[in-house]
């Protein structure tokens, strides 16, 4: 069993039904640790030491956040800036994340169709998530395909339930699967749709 660390960042979680549903679906699971950054560090004053210790203990790192302006909310960026230190996460001596897995789980107001070459966001999510992919690469981590819920403003309850179950299934898979293979992750079909 792998330990899963969910780095969760939402500046107004109390208003986000989708993110609440996602977090609820994995809350309290064995081997799953959720770090609610905006609750832990309301003043952006991140405890780098304890964050690094947690990263070291976990094998799967999952960034859970709304996709604001084609990126993450600022506190997660702050977290990356401070926690992924030179000499710890990358660079000489920066070996502590080596071999771990990183993936992004994002929610967006725009639907999946909007993130296509002919959609209004022009680029695919895979392309727009390149900074995270490259972060994983620099830290010698394996970057796994993203999990996405689009059109969050108009999502129906049953659809959200289904998505939450998919998310839970993905977390179970990451935690329990004998071997993690990018191509055979349970949520892959929907990304292609």
């Amino acid at each position, binding site marked *: 069993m792998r330990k899963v660390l969910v780095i969760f960042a939402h*500046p*107004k*979680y*109390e*208003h*986000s039904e989708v993110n609440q549903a996602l977090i609820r679906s994995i809350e309290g699971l064995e081997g799953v640790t959720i770090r609610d950054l*905006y*609750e*832990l*560090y*309301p*003043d952006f004053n991140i405890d780098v030491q304890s964050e690094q210790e947690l990263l070291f203990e976990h094998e799967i790192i999952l960034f859970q956040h*709304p996709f*604001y302006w084609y990126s993450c909310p600022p*506190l997660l960026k702050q977290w990356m800036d401070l926690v992924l230190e030179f000499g710890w996460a990358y660079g000489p001596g920066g070996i502590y994340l080596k071999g771990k897995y990183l993936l992004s789980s994002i929610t967006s*107001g*725009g*639907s999946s169709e*909007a993130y296509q070459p002919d959609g*209004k966001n022009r680029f695919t999510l895979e392309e727009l998530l390149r900074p995270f992919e490259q972060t994983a690469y620099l830290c010698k981590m394996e970057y796994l395909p993203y999990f996405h819920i689009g*059109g*969050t*403003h*108009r999502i129906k309850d049953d659809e959200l339930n289904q998505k939450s179950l998919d998310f839970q299934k993905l977390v179970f898979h990451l935690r329990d699967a004998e071997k993690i293979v990018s191509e055979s992750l349970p949520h892959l079909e929907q990304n292609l749709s």
Partner: protein
Amino acid sequence: MSGFLPSAIVYILAAIVCVPIAKRLGMGSVLGYLLAGIAIGPYLVGFIQEGQDIMHYTEFGVVMMLFLIGLELEPENLWKMKNLILNAGLTQVLVTSALIIGLGIAFGFTWQISITIGFSMALSSTAIVLQSLKEKNVMGSPVGKLSFGVLLMQDIAVIPILAILPLLAVANETVNTSGEGHGFIEQFPAWVQTLSLFGAVGLVILLGRYGFGPLLNYVSKTHLRELFTASALLIVVGITFLMEFVGLSPALGTFLGGVILANSPYKHALESDLDPFKGLLLGMFFMAVGATINFGLIFSNASIIISATIGVIILKSLVLLIIGKIKKLEIGNNLKFAIGLSQIGEFSFVTYAFASQLGIIDLSISDTLMAITALSMTITPILMVILDKVIFPKMSTNQGPKKEMDTIETRSKVILVGFSHFGSTLGRFLRANGVEATVLDYNPDRVDFLRKMGFKVYYGDATRLDLLHSAGAEEATLLISAIKNPETNLKLIEICKENFPKLEIMLRAKNRVDAYELMEAGMENIYREHLDTSIRMGEDALKKLGFRAHTIHRLAASFKKYDEEALKVLVQYKNNQKEYISKIKLQIESQETLLSGELSRKFSMNDHAWDSEAMKNPEN
């Protein structure tokens, strides 16, 4: 002129006439006093005949000055200067005295006399040099520091010199038996005298460590300023008496007492209380030096005295120039340093008197030597003026980049007034970030307690201008008042605005009403003591009720900002009120305005940040 009052009037008038003129001509107060002394002395106007006596009394000014210098010198700063003092100072004292001793023997004096003269002449005048440096405000410059280091070594050298003199007398086999003893212990053999010197010094150290602190604590609890001043005088006079009792230079003893008290909480209070005495007495002392210049003797022995004086000045300057060169002073600064220190110091008056009482030198030699000393003390300030006004303008290129010497920061940039729980928390935070504030507090017991806890707290009433001066308000950037009493704060503001316009003031206010008063006094940095804590408590309460931490953090920040801005509006509203409306009524009124809720409503959860409601309708 006879009688105390006429003499006093003559002295003071001479000073009032001469010193401002000297200062206006850029000569500094020392030269002004010296010239005033010459003017009223026996050889010009002839008002004053008893210059020697006056000098003896006013030597107390030098004693006080050394006490005050000692107060400025905390042992650790002394330690930081050790290289400067040892290398530069010891070299100066040893080389200069060796050269003069050699010359003395070459001119046919006995070796005892040569040693006495050599060591006496090697010392420069602490009073003149430090007074000039302080007046020109260059104590912190390379020249100032190097000069101070050398002077300090010289002051220390006085101990062995005065201890050696009785031994020389023994070697001379002519132990003085004349009636006017230097001290009570004159009657004992020289080795007892020498031993007793060390005993007296030990006693001063012991008292400084364990005696003066409790005394000042006891007195300061009465909060009677004059009693504190009296105690300060008692310390200086007491040490002086003890030193004279054993026949040792009082200046030295008080200097030692000062250094020991430099770490005490009463440092700044002592400084500000004794400073006027020192200034007056020192001025008198310089005048007395001027008045004692024995022009009769000088004119009758003109060639010897003048050539000896000039010879000593040149010799001392050369030694100092070489030291300055080694310490990498550029030529202009080096000249200032060397010529500044080239006079013979006031300690030589003491050593000559002492030596003649011990029978090492006879009275005529002593008189000649004293004339040389006084003359050199008058000439060097004149040389400095020439250097500043005539020579430096011609070599204008030399004011270029100055090489920094090992920096010794004795004054901090922040003065913190009031070290209650509020002030001490603030002080701890500053200290944790490497900012060591100069702390003033008016509660002697608290000062003692905090001292024991390792804080540098000084006793004193911060609304006293002189105390602020000695705490370094002139050089400080910030004054933080952690006092909650509005009257004290207002008084402090008034004093600082008038005397230290550059000093930025930060104030603690007890409540809204006090804050209004401080705002009306033109203050901007006002910190109501409850504001942050109460909002923080509210933040935590809301969190416990299930609100999100970051949301509350933002709302609390805006609430605080609003509250501060509302204060600025309400203070004007306050001014429109008729004067008879009491503060309390005003307080209630403004509270009502705030609590009515209209103004606070925008701090609800209804802000639109990150909201998706507005985005739901348009097509995406």
